[in-house]
């Protein structure tokens, strides 16, 4: 009985934590972006502008929940839900501390890859259901981008799997006891970070949803809480990619013992979230065909090379 209770507590804890972090990231991102753009972010509403999140949430909840009459109603409502569902489900395999993870799947890493493949549907269906030329174009571009970058997102992680010998996330963290995987798998880390950025369509890969491109891409027709769901889903995706980078390449919850392992995990995750926000503040947006050719012509051969060299080194020594 106590084991079931333990699992229920962990599940609710993870869901509550993630649904608190995602809106909190709204404030975090705006303040950090402002810091790097040499201005103040929100600092009026509450201490250090922390209540800005509450104000935004209240505003979004009270907006009119309008579904365009020319849109496909069921699919229109379904699309934002898919992002949040797949992102939250992927958090089931992330090991937060030794023994604390929602489920200890033997194919944990493959589960994450499956969930991120399903996450591509939100963009595709959102754009199609809006019945709007610009949304359709934005979603077609987004679908092509996400499919392309998914290919080597999986391949870049196979080096880590080869070094560990299993897909289980707990085993991967434990295998980094002596040496973090960033050192033998640096190329894999770089490729996974770039591919993860493209999967959550975050700058510099945010052609699908950029305000200056194609109106607003696939979420032009969305307003109110549905748009809020896309937004929250994007922040959940960033947190997910950061926590996966920490788990797979930076030792997970390992760290000097003056802080508990959970704190180390969250500290490292937030460093990577800040890195992603820095990328948004500093990099320009590449053109769509440059983006795709960068993926297919540079990153895919590089990830295959990484796989080859890792396999050769493991086999020989």
């Amino acid at each position, binding site marked *: 009985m106590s084991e079931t209770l333990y699992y229920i507590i962990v599940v609710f804890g993870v869901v509550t934590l993630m649904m608190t972090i995602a809106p909190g990231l709204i404030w975090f991102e705006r303040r950090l972006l402002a810091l790097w753009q040499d201005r103040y972010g929100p600092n009026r509403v509450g201490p250090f502008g922390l209540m800005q999140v509450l104000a935004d949430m209240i505003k979004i909840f009270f907006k009119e929940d309008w579904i365009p009459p020319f849109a*496909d109603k*069921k*699919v229109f409502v*379904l699309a934002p839900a898919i992002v949040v569902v797949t992102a939250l489900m992927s958090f089931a395999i992330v090991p937060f501390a030794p023994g604390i993870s929602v489920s200890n*799947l*033997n*194919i944990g890493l*493959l*589960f994450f*890859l*499956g*969930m991120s*493949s*399903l996450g*591509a*549907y939100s963009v*595709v*269906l959102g*754009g*199609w259901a809006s019945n709007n030329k610009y949304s*359709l174009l934005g*979603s*077609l571009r987004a*679908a*092509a981008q996400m*499919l392309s970058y*998914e290919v080597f997102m*999986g391949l870049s992680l196979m080096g880590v799997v080869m070094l560990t*010998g299993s*897909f289980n996330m707990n085993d991967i963290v434990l295998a980094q006891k002596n040496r973090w995987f960033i050192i033998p798998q640096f190329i894999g880390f770089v490729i996974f970070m770039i591919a993860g950025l493209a999967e959550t369509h975050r700058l510099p890969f945010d052609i699908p949803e950029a305000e200056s491109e194609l109106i607003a891409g696939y979420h032009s027709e969305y307003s109110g809480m549905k748009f809020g769901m896309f937004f929250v889903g994007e922040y959940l995706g960033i947190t997910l990619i950061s926590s996966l980078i920490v788990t797979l390449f930076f030792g997970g919850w390992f760290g000097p013992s003056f802080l508990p392992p959970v704190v180390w995990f969250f500290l490292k995750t937030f460093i990577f979230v800040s890195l992603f926000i820095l990328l948004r503040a500093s990099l320009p947006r590449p053109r769509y065909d440059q983006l795709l050719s960068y993926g297919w012509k540079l990153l895919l051969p590089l990830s295959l090379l990484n796989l080859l060299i890792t396999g050769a080194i493991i086999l020989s020594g």
Partner: protein
Amino acid sequence: MLTIFYLSAVVAVVSTMMVITRKEAVHALLYLIVSLLAISIIFFALGAPFIAALEVIIYAGAIMVLFIFVVMMLNLGRESIQQERQLLKPRMWFGPVILTLILIVEFIILFSKIRGQNYHALSISPKVVGVSLFSTYLLGVELSAMLLMAGIVGAYYLGKGKKRIMHRYLANTGSDSKAKGETK
């Protein structure tokens, strides 16, 4: 375990029936995705976790996205819904029902002959799949690799741009085409 199997089997059958009776193409594809996810759960419950994950990643996550991509680009509209309504009339079901009845009779005959077998809860890990793919089934892997290679070459050829056809005046004088270009 058996409850999970029967539940996901019911979901798979019902969603596949919805696939073939929908008039909107994208709705049919969404039901197909549900059916594939149900099959992935059946694989997982029967002890093949690797195949379950690959079904979601590759089949439901990449191939079906491409299907939806193509259907979106076709931009079917109202006429296709009318067409589907014509095609789903009862007299259209006559042929498929006859053929399926033959299959059902064969099923019943076969299942009445098989003795009930014990359900072995054997879990096949990714390592075992990898080892068997590269030792026992190596020929199949190489043949499918060649098939995919043929697909890639065909896709490259189809996607290559056409040769630019220039106006015959512009073909000779490439350098001062700007002076002559406006008069065209």
